[in-house]
């Protein structure tokens, strides 16, 4: 445990040092550098001028982008398509909310504890499910999540069952994870997404990530060249679980109400996988793209069709899922990536094709 933390701290500091070193004025002329910087600037500086409505959409986009990125670690890169990730989301949401409800414990602490509990849950789920392949794995994760949902639903004395738990709004209180303006929530959600993307990036460029991708493609071959598939999958799932749980806590703190059907439900599990499938499984930015596409679509349909057509959003989600799977199973990211590369190549300052 200690060496893991030391390793993480060292690794992150090396990254920051590298970032600082490479950050000289000449590099700023390269579109590969200034495009992302511009995007970051937009994300940081524009929102204060947006209305509550648009901020709300952005919060949801980044919340679900972060959750989708977390799923992507084990589901996309690892090829272990879980339809039970709501188990971690719900566990995070309920842990922080119950600790706050019964003991007035700060949800930040609750978030941390929720993540820890999710890691423990992930050991159990991994032990049960990783021995299974293909559809059996998918169904078993689904079943286990449903069992958990049922437990939460029926332990009314603890969790209030189907009535759900609400969080009383006490006004601006950063320690209690409550803010009067949506902007703060937005920055936190953005931060969560950036953390999730960064963690994914670190994993993917390491031995762990490489082994994970290898065993996702051919487990027998990976084991034959020394990959401890059980350990690799367990670690990836643990990381994924912890991040997903953090998103669950944020959800609870933002929506102020949780109930078993929403945070432990199969629709949520499906949605978590959907972001990566639409955006591109096993790609770094896929889930973010997927979250943007899906949330914008959701807002558009509920704004235009409103109450009269309950269910239309899910028809569109389902239809999109089917279409992606049939036509573009690799998701939108590869295509958008190529498009991005082409634009960057023709931007001023580009070093594409030029000798350095």
């Amino acid at each position, binding site marked *: 445990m200690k060496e893991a933390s030391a390793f993480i701290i060292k690794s992150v500091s090396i990254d920051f040092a590298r970032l600082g070193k490479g950050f000289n004025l000449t590099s700023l002329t390269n579109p590969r550098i200034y495009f992302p910087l511009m995007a970051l600037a937009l994300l940081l500086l524009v929102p204060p001028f947006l209305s509550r409505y648009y901020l709300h959409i952005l919060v949801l986009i980044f919340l679900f982008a972060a959750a989708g990125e977390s799923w992507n670690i084990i589901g996309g890169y690892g090829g272990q398509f879980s339809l039970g990730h709501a188990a971690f989301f719900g566990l995070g949401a309920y842990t922080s909310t119950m600790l706050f409800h019964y003991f007035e414990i700060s949800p930040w602490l609750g978030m941390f504890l929720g993540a820890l509990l999710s890691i423990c849950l992930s050991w159990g789920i991994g032990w049960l499910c990783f021995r299974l392949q293909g559809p059996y794995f998918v169904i078993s994760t689904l079943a286990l999540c449903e069992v958990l949902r049922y437990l939460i639903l029926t332990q009314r004395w603890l969790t209030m069952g189907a009535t759900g738990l609400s969080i009383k709004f006490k006004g601006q209180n950063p320690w209690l994870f409550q803010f009067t303006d949506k902007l703060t929530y937005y920055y936190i959600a953005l931060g969560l997404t950036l953390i999730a993307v960064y963690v994914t990036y670190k994993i993917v460029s390491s*031995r762990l990530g490489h082994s994970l991708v290898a065993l996702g*493609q051919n487990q*027998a*071959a990976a084991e034959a*060249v*020394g*990959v*401890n598939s059980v350990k690799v999958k367990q670690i990836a799932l643990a990381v994924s679980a912890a991040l997903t749980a953090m998103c669950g806590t944020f959800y609870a703190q933002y929506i102020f109400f949780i109930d078993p059907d929403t945070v432990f439900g199969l629709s949520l599990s499906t949605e978590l996988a959907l972001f990566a499938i639409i955006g591109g499984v096993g790609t770094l930015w896929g889930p973010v793209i997927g979250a943007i596409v899906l949330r914008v679509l959701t807002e558009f349909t509920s704004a235009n069709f409103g109450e009269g057509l309950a269910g239309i959003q899910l028809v569109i989600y389902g239809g999109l899922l089917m279409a992606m799977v049939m036509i573009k199973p690799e998701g939108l990211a590869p295509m958008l990536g190529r498009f991005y590369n082409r634009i960057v190549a023709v931007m001023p300052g580009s070093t594409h094709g030029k000798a350095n």
Partner: protein
Amino acid sequence: MGRPTSMNLLEVKNLSKRFGGLQAINEFSFNAEEGKILGLIGPNGAGKTTLFNLITGVYRPESGNVMFDGQDILGMKPHQICRFGLCRTFQVAQPFSNMTVLKNVMTGAYCRTSDPAEAEEKATACLQRVGLAAQAGVTARELTTIDQRRLEFARALATDPKLILLDESMAGLNHAECEITIALIKKINEQGVTIVVVEHNMKAILSLSHYMAVIAQGSKITEGLPQEVVNDSRVVEAYLGKGFTKC
């Protein structure tokens, strides 16, 4: 080469495996001498791949013993056995299809190091050893059969093995490709890797092996020097006159 006397790197004693009603492997024993090439032949369905699966921990035998480099490796998982220095290739090439050739080999290199730069360096070196360096950026799915075989070798070599189990490396190759593969295997052996090779192709295995063993219906028929084995009437009988396959 270090040791004054040649010792047995791999010792398999009385290995037995049953699948339902079928006795797939029956009290099979053999030794692989360090630094040499042992050829294992036998008709189709004799149990050669099953034997490899037993040795590398994919299946558990009902009885018997496997000692590798002085260690009892029975019951260990495949990845642990690989770390001990015993690696295997597959009868049907098993590349990581969506990865590049280089990344494929890096997976093996990661067995010995956790640093991505080191892994890449080692992978490149292994690719050069097998002659695939030019294909480093190609996606594995697009390789020809012979190149996929070479990829299997390179990936196995990246794990710094003391012994490699080669399963039917010549299957699907034409004459020229066979020759190239034989030369490659010999080269790898000369660099110090012990090899146990399973093969259908008689001519190839005769030119490769320092000594041979014959398996039929799960049991060992005979063993010894290549010329002895090939002239043994029991072996000819086991093949029912198939004798020499075209190389």
